[in-house]
């Protein structure tokens, strides 16, 4: 109860300060930016603090160690079980009597629509721009390792979900941490679960909302011409409001159908560009491998490439963050492990396939400026990132790369970014809502408060400049991973037990194919 009151007070205070600042400031965008940067900076610094005596953020090591531990503990499950994962998605083990329930395919694609998006388009460009082509290598490695993290969290998400009498379900780290810790007789489960929920709410406002609105505005203004961010913010906020508050499902349904189409179009265009430059693919991979261990002149060298690769991979596929466990928990299955196995395909599709393709297109189309004499990349004037052909970064860099092959593609990309941003917002509005109702209880008043706040943050995100928004988004998403991975360490023996039992029954023929 005290936690509830404190959270409400914090929210009201934050919104009050925010509104007061806007009223006093001359420009709305400037006011939002100033308040935003000053109020979140301390948390960002804490999350990204470097390890003593190095420039390596402790949080990146935290994710890497987590993914490595899960990979080793489950004996490289991501490589050994991927064939079975595909069979599960194809429905080969789905009981026909369960038709009409949420299938493995649906749980996977729903979770993917929350992760595939700006991370794959803007995030990769940021990683390559700062860390050079070598960042791609670390990104792929992080994607492959992250598959094990996703496997553990999504298995637990299904195992410990709440199934209500009316047939609806709620799941995610807050449920498995609190129930799992209690089952194992461990203390602190409820505290960790509540802490996760708090971070998840801010993660939903940050990476799941403001970052999306911010980048959607950047794309729109690059095509239409420069105009104030709050205009995009208000338009987006109204549409999001209509869906999540007004319950206009048709908008959500249209989005859910267009987004996969945009994804296929994006990947298709990337594949065509790669085929057009097939002779350079070997060179591009050479740059990726060489850059991974030498940095090829980027700021921070090899460590710089590694940090960028791991950071953007984590932000893109969210492995270890815990968000996917919320999305996957609605599947119909009596074997929680099956959803874990399906979920491990998510980082593979998101990072290993789509992110790598974006990176290859940027490298092959020659967007990054290098010195022909030394072969090293040339840094921009500030010395913070690699100089690009037209000085662009983020989405604009990806857009320029695709646009160099197809002049019309930047227009398609604008639409893709806007649709991806919108679909990610809808997914995160749900994740955030689940965390919110975990803290404040299910109820129309509590739900409405969250939904209205979510819409307000859309305006903040579109108005603030990219730097503070990216920092805040990353910090919140990674803060979720801190709590979630602690939970996963303590609960992984439960997953191991399920894993051994499932594969023993599969081998003995007790678990049969239906198709």
């Amino acid at each position, binding site marked *: 109860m005290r936690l509830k009151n404190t959270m409400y007070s914090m929210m009201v205070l934050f919104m009050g300060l925010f509104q007061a600042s806007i009223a006093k400031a001359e420009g709305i965008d400037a006011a939002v930016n100033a308040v935003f940067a000053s109020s979140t900076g301390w948390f960002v610094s804490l999350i990204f603090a470097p390890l003593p005596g190095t420039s390596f953020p402790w949080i990146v090591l935290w994710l890497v160690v987590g993914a490595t531990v899960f990979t080793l503990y489950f004996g490289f499950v991501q490589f050994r079980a991927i064939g079975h994962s595909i069979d599960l998605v194809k429905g080969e083990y789905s009981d026909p009597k369960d*038709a009409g329930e949420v299938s493995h395919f649906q749980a996977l694609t729903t979770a993917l629509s929350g992760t595939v998006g700006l991370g794959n388009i803007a995030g990769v460009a940021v990683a390559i721009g700062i860390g050079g082509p070598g960042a791609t290598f670390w990104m792929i490695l992080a994607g492959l390792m992250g598959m094990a993290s996703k496997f553990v969290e999504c298995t637990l998400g299904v195992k410990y979900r709440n199934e209500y009498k009316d047939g609806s379900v709620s799941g995610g780290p807050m449920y498995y941490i609190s129930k799992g810790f209690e089952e194992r007789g461990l203390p602190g489960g409820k505290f960790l679960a509540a802490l996760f929920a708090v971070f998840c709410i801010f993660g939903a406002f940050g990476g799941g909302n403001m970052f999306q609105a911010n980048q959607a505005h950047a794309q729109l203004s690059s095509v239409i011409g420069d105009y104030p961010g709050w205009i995009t913010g208000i338009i987006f906020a109204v549409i999001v409001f209509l869906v999540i508050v007004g319950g206009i499902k048709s908008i959500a349904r249209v989005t859910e159908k267009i987004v996969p189409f945009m994804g296929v179009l994006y990947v298709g265009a990337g594949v065509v560009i790669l085929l057009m430059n097939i002779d350079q693919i070997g060179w591009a991979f050479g740059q990726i491998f060489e850059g991974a261990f030498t940095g090829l002149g980027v700021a921070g060298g090899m460590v710089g490439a590694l940090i960028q690769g791991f950071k953007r991979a984590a932000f893109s596929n969210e492995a270890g963050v815990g968000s996917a466990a919320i999305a996957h928990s609605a599947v119909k299955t009596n074997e929680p492990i099956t959803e874990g196995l399906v979920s491990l395909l998510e980082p593979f599709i998101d990072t290993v396939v789509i992110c790598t393709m974006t990176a290859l297109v940027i490298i092959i189309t020659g967007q990054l400026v290098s010195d022909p004499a030394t072969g090293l990349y040339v840094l921009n004037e500030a010395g913070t990132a690699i100089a690009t052909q037209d000085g662009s970064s983020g989405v604009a860099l990806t857009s320029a790369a695709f646009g160099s092959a197809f002049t019309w593609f930047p227009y398609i990309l604008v639409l893709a970014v806007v649709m991806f941003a919108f679909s990610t917002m809808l997914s995160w509005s749900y994740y955030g809502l689940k965390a919110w109702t975990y803290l404040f209880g299910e109820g129309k008043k509590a739900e409405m408060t969250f939904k209205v706040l979510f819409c307000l943050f859309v305006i903040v995100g579109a108005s603030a400049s990219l730097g503070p928004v990216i920092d805040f988004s990353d910090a919140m998403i990674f803060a979720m991973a801190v709590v979630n991975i602690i939970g996963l360490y303590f609960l992984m023996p439960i997953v191991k037990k399920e894993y051994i039992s499932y594969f023993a029954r599969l081998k003995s023929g007790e678990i049969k194919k239906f198709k």
Partner: protein
Amino acid sequence: MSTTLIVGIDGSEAGARALSYTKRLATLIGSDCKIEVVYVIEWSPYSFQTPEENAQRNKQREKAISIANERIVEPAIKSLQDEGFAAEGRVLHGKVAHLLNSVAVETNAEQIVVARSSAAGFTSRVFGSVTANLVMSSTVPVTVVS
């Protein structure tokens, strides 16, 4: 040995015609004929859904089954039983043509009776009609009532 007839209904006038024709067939076959009424809710496990829809899916599924039973299948069974026919029914989720055939195979049915739906024009030209799909894919004889 009894004879089973499968009749696909959808709550429309076309479904009623199929049911009416099945009664005639059953009368001709005699007292050992059993009618299996099947209502299929069109569903694909490969559709795209929002997280909210997924969370509510089980609830929505149960609701859809209950409504279909209450409004369409149970009244049809009752009318058949009132007229002295042995009848059973079921509501299923999936592809209509595939499921009608599956039920027919499972119950060792003699034939499937459906009515030609009123849906025509562009949609059926592009995607093919349910009736046409059933006729093409069924492993059991199919009667299409016009």
